[in-house]
């Protein structure tokens, strides 16, 4: 995957390496901003809830 991206980027090897790092950082930011909050909302068990009522009510905040 990364080899494929590296191979299809333009410019000399140094520039391409920097571009790959940029792509990785952008992907990380996208995960932090959109993907992980969405995942946490879909599977409430992934993020711990500190209250006692939630689990008993069987609500989304298990």
């Amino acid at each position: 995957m990364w080899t494929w991206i590296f191979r299809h980027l333009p410019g000399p090897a140094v520039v391409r390496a920097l571009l790959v790092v940029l792509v990785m950082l952008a992907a990380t930011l996208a995960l932090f901003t959109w993907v992980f909050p969405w995942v946490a909302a879909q599977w409430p068990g992934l993020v711990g809830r500190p209250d006692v009522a939630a689990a008993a009510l069987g609500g989304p905040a298990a």
Partner: protein
Amino acid sequence: MTHVEQARRRAARGAGAPVGVLGFLGELFLTLGVVVALFVVWQLWWTGIGPVRDAKEQVAQFYAHVAPAAPEVVASAELRTDDVPEVAQVAHGQTLGVLVVPAWAGKTENRMPIVEGVTPDVLDRAFAGHYPQTATPGGLGNFSVAGHRRSYGNSFLHVPDLVAGQPVVVETAETWYVYRVTGHELVTPDRTDVVAPVPGSPGALPERRLLTMTTCHSVRYGAFGNDHRWVVRAELEGWLPRSAGTPDVVAEMEAA
């Protein structure tokens, strides 16, 4: 280059196309591993950044709207135990006051806003959420709050520091309420009776003024797990009008 040479080279590399597929899969699995690790980084660190800023802002807003506490402790500002002033219930999302935990000074945000509600929109902002059905600060019964342990600002991370005798202070617009920790217990998340007016006896009429704090706990993974709740118990020691000064436990914390 002859066909024989090409074939030999291909043989030396492996088997041509399958190597490409395996390499791609290898990279994909490595990437998935990194993504899972990043999820942990996100939860333990990233989720705390915005909420802590939110909580600080909320506390600053609270102080901007109330008269500053008299800075000088007048005659050591004895706590009162008679005629405990009542605090009115507020609507979901409204601020009741500030939770001051001297034991957490210098470790985490030890002044956090107490906001009505225990839903994610309150708790995921590093607030201490007030269980809506429970007593208000200083009230007869069981004033109960929940806070995250390790994520969204780590509000209650150092909950094991709260051993018997430690002060926990609730500051409202008019009054300081000083509670003393009496102990703690570890329960399963379905034990709603820990926030009952008389803990453990839902329906019983309260005679004491209690405070309960709940947060995540795991018997196996400590702060990193969520299979249990760490429940801190405290009882009201006394109260002080803000105009009369600052309680000793808060003044000592600020002087340290």
